[in-house]
């Protein structure tokens, strides 16, 4: 009996002490981590919808079958009492797996900004699509009928594809379409 007891007690003690120390570290860092996350979120929301200064989040997780994208949240942005627009984080699949695209739409119904979040796109190719050069091509769009062209199209609904990164360009366009679709159907 004794040779079972000692290892068990020692192991248990090691576990308890470890958990205790880790919990203490967690208590110290917890608030800071939460604050950082909140800050990062506020930052990208302010970037895509500069007019608003406070946001109200509703979790959605609504699938858009037409554009094969999932609208994750609606963040209603306002300044004082005035509603200024919405920010939609949208998940869609790119070249290297899922991408989260954050789309801001202002109160007139036009895209005010796009930011690309976590992604596994090819560095130097698909990842270039996250740069302002490309995402700014979406600004001002109103109808959920955007499409990617390779010929440098000029029509209002044509987005010039990033060379070599058609799949990523398509993914971003689908995400923006899904956000616009949601905005046009459900309003602010």
């Amino acid at each position, binding site marked *: 009996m004794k040779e079972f007891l000692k290892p068990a007690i*020692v192991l248990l003690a090691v576990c308890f002490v470890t958990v205790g120390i880790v919990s203490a570290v*967690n208590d110290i*860092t917890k608030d800071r981590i939460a604050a950082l996350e909140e800050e990062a979120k506020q930052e990208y929301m302010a970037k895509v919808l500069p007019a608003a200064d406070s946001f109200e989040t509703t979790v959605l997780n609504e699938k858009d079958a037409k554009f094969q994208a999932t609208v994750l949240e609606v963040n209603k942005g306002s300044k004082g009492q005035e509603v200024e627009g919405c920010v939609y984080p949208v998940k869609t699949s790119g070249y290297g797996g899922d991408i989260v695209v954050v789309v801001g739409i202002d109160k007139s119904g036009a895209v005010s900004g796009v930011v690309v979040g976590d992604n596994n796109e090819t*560095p130097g190719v698909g990842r270039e699509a996250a740069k302002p050069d490309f995402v700014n091509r979406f600004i001002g769009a109103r109808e959920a009928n955007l499409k990617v062209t390779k010929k440098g199209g000029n029509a209002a609904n044509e987005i010039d594809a990033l060379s070599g990164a058609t799949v990523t360009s398509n993914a971003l366009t689908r995400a923006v379409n899904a956000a616009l679709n949601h905005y046009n159907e459900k309003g602010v």
Partner: protein
Amino acid sequence: MKGFKIIKNGILNENPIFRMVLGMCPTLAVTTSAENGLGMGLATTFCLVGSNMIISLLRRIIPDKVRIPAYITVIAGFVTIIELILKAFFPALDESLGLFIPLIVVNCIIMARAESFANRNPVWDSILDGIGMGIGFTVSLVLIGSVREILGAGSIFGKSFLTGEMKPILIFLLPPGGFMILGFLMALINKITNRTTPIRHCGSCPMNCVGRSCEKESVA
């Protein structure tokens, strides 16, 4: 003098990557830039030194039978601490290393040093061993990361040196480039030091052989 020898051993003679070939997964996965390599190396060093110290302190208390689960718990504790610290103070690094931070737990280097050094040496020596191994690991990661970054992104520690029409060779940032650069660097070091790196049979992780004669068994 002995302390210096222990540290030097970790960096040169028993370099965890180029000599012992331990911890291949983080080595290949996070070395897309020198900075990531440095971050991963330092995070691993922290866990290595901490767990070496604690395990050496407890080496007479922990019964032999339960030493592996006890080591795993201690190592996992340190890994969680560094995970929380990175999240709170270095969020950018946390994001780029991502999944590979919790995976430090299963990095064979830490378990290997616990088993083969810390549980039979005094505390101070074990700490030095952790530092030496940690530096060896970090230096190797930074080396691999720099080569991949220079070739694949055309920059050093994030500073681009490309001008005009020069284009970096992207493939070196992608998985195949990781395997290839490590292979070539290892061969180069072998060439210089006139050695070879044989593949040990039971997987390169020594943990696999811990407490079992896996070497013998898996041959059967």
